[in-house]
């Protein structure tokens, strides 16, 4: 049965502000799931807290709307217990890079086969516009009483050093590009990070849709806006690590690209390395039958209710008589 994007919709009202980038991200996600040929029960969407946290309720797939910053630990537990599931984590920039920054970094160490989409809008929307960890130093978005006194985290650079093996950026209003990026992330063997740039029409009056589109800097000759976003894939940039010997070079190139912001902002895949063993592969190295018999699938009791565990070896080790 081939499913359509509409098969991944629920009847839950999406209560984001008009013009919110979340609509684009939601649509791209639903389209990606349909195009990937997945069925709803095979997918788990895990989210954190904030406007982005509501995404799972609008996707017809298993949804786990968790705690602020804890998206990745939940996703990790789900994937480890049942590696058959397609696990997609979504969360805000405050969720992933502020309160959940420790999980962001440490999840990178495991290279678990999940996809993590961070909705990056520079503000905490649901608490009414405070600065998020991705808002640049000195900016004063609408609700801030004073200009932002802290420097921003660079999510792409952080993902690279943390060990994410697929690092990409896309844009909520370029639904097609975002959809393709999500598909690539899900298909990637390993941990994928997608920095989804997302205007917040209510609280971020600086990094707006018009700002990304370059409406503020029209070409004096043509009168046309000069967009800030450009696509890496259109520049001949090759993010793929084809041989582990070139990993350092590729990572450095990605790191270099990660520094671009302001006048020209790259979107697309910065880095992709499928040569690194995934967590699944690492476990299989120790437990050969893990893929076919993961924790969620093991039979733990027999027909009479007795435990299937045979404790003889444990007891033998502890025996004194």
């Amino acid at each position, binding site marked *: 049965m081939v499913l359509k994007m509409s098969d991944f919709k*629920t009847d*839950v009202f999406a209560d984001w502000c008009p013009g919110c980038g979340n609509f684009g991200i939601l649509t791209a996600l639903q389209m990606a799931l349909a195009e990937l040929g997945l*069925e709803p*029960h095979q997918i*788990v969407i*895990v989210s954190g807290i904030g406007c982005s946290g509501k995404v*799972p*309720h609008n996707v017809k*797939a*298993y*949804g*786990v*709307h*968790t*705690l602020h910053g*804890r998206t*990745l*630990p*939940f*996703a*990790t*537990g*789900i994937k*480890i*217990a*049942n590696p*058959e*599931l397609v696990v997609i984590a979504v969360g805000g920039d405050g969720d992933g890079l502020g309160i959940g920054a*420790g*999980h962001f*970094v*440490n999840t990178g160490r495991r290279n678990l086969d999940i996809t993590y989409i961070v909705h990056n809008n520079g503000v905490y929307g649901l608490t009414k516009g405070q600065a998020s960890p991705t808002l640049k130093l000195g900016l004063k978005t609408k609700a801030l009483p004073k200009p932002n006194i802290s420097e921003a985290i660079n999510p792409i650079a952080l993902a690279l050093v943390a060990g994410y093996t697929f690092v990409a950026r896309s844009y909520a209003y370029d639904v097609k590009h975002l959809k393709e990026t999500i598909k690539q992330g899900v298909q990637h063997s390993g941990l994928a990070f997608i920095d989804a740039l997302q205007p917040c029409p209510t609280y971020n009056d600086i990094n707006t849709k018009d700002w990304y589109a370059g409406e503020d800097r029209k070409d004096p000759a043509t009168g046309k806006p000069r967009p800030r976003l450009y696509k890496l894939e259109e520049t001949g940039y090759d993010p793929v690590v084809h041989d582990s010997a070139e990993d350092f070079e590729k990572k450095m190139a990605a790191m270099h690209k990660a520094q671009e912001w302001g006048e020209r902002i790259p979107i697309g895949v910065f880095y992709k390395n499928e040569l690194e063993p995934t967590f699944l592969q690492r*476990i299989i190295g120790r*437990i050969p*039958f*893990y893929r076919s*018999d*993961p*924790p*969620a699938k*093991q039979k*733990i*009791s*027999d027909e*009479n*209710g*007795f*435990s*299937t*565990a*045979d*404790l*003889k*070896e*444990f*007891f033998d080790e*502890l*025996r*004194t*008589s």
Partner: protein
Amino acid sequence: MKDINWMAGGPQGAGVDSAANIFGRACGYGGLYVFGKREYHSNIKGLHSYFHLRVSDHAVSANVNDVDLLAAFDAETVVRHISEVVSDGGIVVDKEQVDTKVFNIPTLPTEFKNELSKYMDQKGLGDTLSDFLDSARRSGIHVFQVPYMDLLKQTAAKLGIDKISTVIRMINVLTIGVSFSLLDYDQNLVEKAIRAIFSDKPKIVDMNIVALRQAYNYTKQTFKDEFPHRLAKIGTGEQRIFLSGNQAVAVGKILGGCRVQTYYPITPAANESEYLEAHEILKTKTGEGAIIVVQTEDEIAAINAASGAALTGARAATSTSGPGFSLMVEGLSWAGNDEVPVVITYYQRGAPATGLPTRFGQADLSFVIHAGHGEFPRIVLASGDIKECFYDAAVAFNYAERYQLPVIHLIDKAMANSSQTYPVFDVDQFKIARGNILGENELQGQAYKRFNFTETGISPRVFLGTRNGVHWYTGDEHNEVGHISEEPANRNIMVEKRMKKLEMVDKEIPVEEKINFFGDKNSENLIVSWGSPKGAILEAVNVLTAEGFSLRFMQVRMLHPLPKAHIANALRIAERIIDVENNYLGQLGGIIKEETGISANFHVLKYNGRPVTTTEVYDALRNILRGQALRRQVLTYGS
């Protein structure tokens, strides 16, 4: 046979732990029962640690104050424990250290030196170790001065080893050899224990056996029959195990079907997870299984990853101690709200803050019962000994899945790091019950609602990934399907649905699983306690009963929801209610008063970071029974 209380002490890292293991096993091989407690500083190398073992021809479940034979690796051990040695007991000490000036021992803390000064003034002691030993001799203690270095050098020579540093670690085996030889115990059993403990290191086995024989021979020749105590093997027809609380929980979890364990390193919980990881591939009746142990970045990740795993249908647990549980509290609230069957094994230690990280306390009861914002159901189950740790670790998963709630299995450092002899546990006493679970076939054609309102408050559960069962979880209040809902009427029903499960626990789980009663059920004297004081209380009750006193002991195991009707019944027929706990406030007494309105008449409390001994519980209870006790007695034994 008279019980033998053996203590080995020395600097951390010198092999006190292996010494105790060898000693305990060797006794076990001789058909003897052992209870042993490990005490250590929060330190890697150098600070004082010791193991206190009690050996008997009958089952023993706690330490007593006495030390019959003290095996001192170093001078500090003598200084710290000399006052615990009984008058016809013995001290094994390094001959070369007897001239040590006690105040020059660098690892003695100031508070201890102050106490020591007072003790020395009282006894009129000089400041060298030999002054202490002379005083011991005067009170009838046998002092066995052994040239550790000479014996080690001889051992090295026999082994053809040049470097003394290679054999220096065998001071522990040396003192075991001397001890067992003094006790005239079968050397073959000790060698068997060494072989078992170092089974994966044949070279170490050989070295240790040479050292052991050296020690046995030296002792036989030098001290002959000087020591009056004897340890003799007895026959046993049954299979027995000797295990710690950490191990019992780990093996219990395997029995209970746990297949995902998350943890962040913390004392005294981490040993359990490491043990599980070392045994990750399991034998099952049908082949093989495996438990996945994940060391997460913190305890916040640990609880939430365990919850995530539980949602997929795997039995999942995390294991921690007080500071770690503090970090887990938000996750606990989520698990309560989302009806997640997750098990948290909680090893209490000395608190608050970092507290006494390697020591003992029972002061987290109020915390675990109340932890988490909002009202949600949970079960708190407290084991009282190592055997209960085993079965409770398994049964916790049944409770969690049957009632779809977080279960906190409350144990403590005293059980985690104590080891005890038991007949091999009967695994057929335990059955797995997973509650109401729907699979894809049962779901066909129906619109599944994860939080379906039911009479019992328990909704049939579907694992993530099941075809036809798509549903949602959210930390927000939600409707039956699992979508966010802030509607007041739905909210009421949902709150009531969740809380209703506590009534079901109250109604359905038999009282035998919630409370243990011991002693005379018609007694007017009722002891109330929970957790690891159980062993010492039982022994004290036995002795007092033999002396003609009448006592009943109520060990509360399910602390939340509290089986208050049963507790109240027991309290009502008692004249004297005696609350025994290892905390300052008498927390269980407080909770019982809150739930039943009945207060304890006497409190026997201890909070110095050390478990209660049979001796001091006996003394405290006897004072009460004779009408000679204050309402509140604070116990202080321990070093």
